[in-house]
């Protein structure tokens, strides 16, 4: 992969069905999704979020991820100059594959949340032998 100069991605504010009822702003985390034969990997950028403040739910083939920011870390800080805003992160995906609920794993490193969603056995493509 060539290394180009990195541009800033303006944070996208959450605007979708199922809007939040609280006034605070939510942001949509930048996400990569890739698929292997046996699993789907979802990689999300949630800078500043603690491990304990991440919530991942899977229901009705919808994957909900909510990552909350601990604003108390900013106690006593008076902004002087800003280029970005902060807020909780929230995103929902409709999954087209059957996922094994029991086998979802999550890891959080350097503000990057990696979810590995194992497909249920029947959804794994099988190679059919031709006799």
């Amino acid at each position: 992969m060539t290394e180009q100069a990195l541009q800033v991605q303006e944070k996208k504010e959450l605007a979708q069905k199922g809007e939040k009822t609280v006034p605070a702003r939510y942001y949509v985390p930048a996400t990569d999704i890739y698929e292997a034969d046996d699993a789907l990997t979802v990689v999300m950028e949630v800078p500043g979020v603690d491990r304990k403040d991440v919530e991942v739910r899977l229901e009705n083939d919808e994957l909900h991820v909510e990552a909350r920011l601990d604003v108390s870390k900013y106690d006593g800080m008076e902004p002087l100059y800003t280029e970005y805003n902060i807020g909780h992160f929230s995103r929902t995906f409709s999954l087209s594959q059957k996922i094994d609920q029991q086998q979802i794993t999550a890891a959080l490193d350097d503000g990057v949340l990696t979810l590995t969603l194992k497909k249920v056995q029947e959804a794994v493509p099988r190679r059919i032998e031709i006799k």
Partner: protein
Amino acid sequence: MAFAFTDPFETLFNFQQALDQLRASAWLEAGVSGQGAFPPLNVFRKDHDIVVIAEVPGVGKEDLSIEAKGNAIRIAGTKRIAFRDGTSVHRRERRNGRFDRTVTLPIEVDAEKIKAECRDGILAIFLPRAERDKPRAIAIN
């Protein structure tokens, strides 16, 4: 505290509004290079000191280099994204690449005491104001 209890959402919302109001404020004057370049920076005051905070998700300590010269702070590094082989990409929103930007602060900084921390994808640089630059209360005779 002024209230018996505070709603954390209220706190966040008020803080978000405060951050919005200072979007690219004049405080740094011409002291910021490459506005709109990565990483986006927020500058705060905490007591007498200045804290520069940047969001650098996916950038580890080893991929970052922070340099200070006088009042200028240089933040450079590389953001890498590892893709596994044998997968098909459905969605690609994260970006990778090099970055390099410099901020010049309009105050005097004690270069010896600058500290930087990088945790959970947040880079925080603590810049203590130089003792001789701190405002002094003048006694009125």
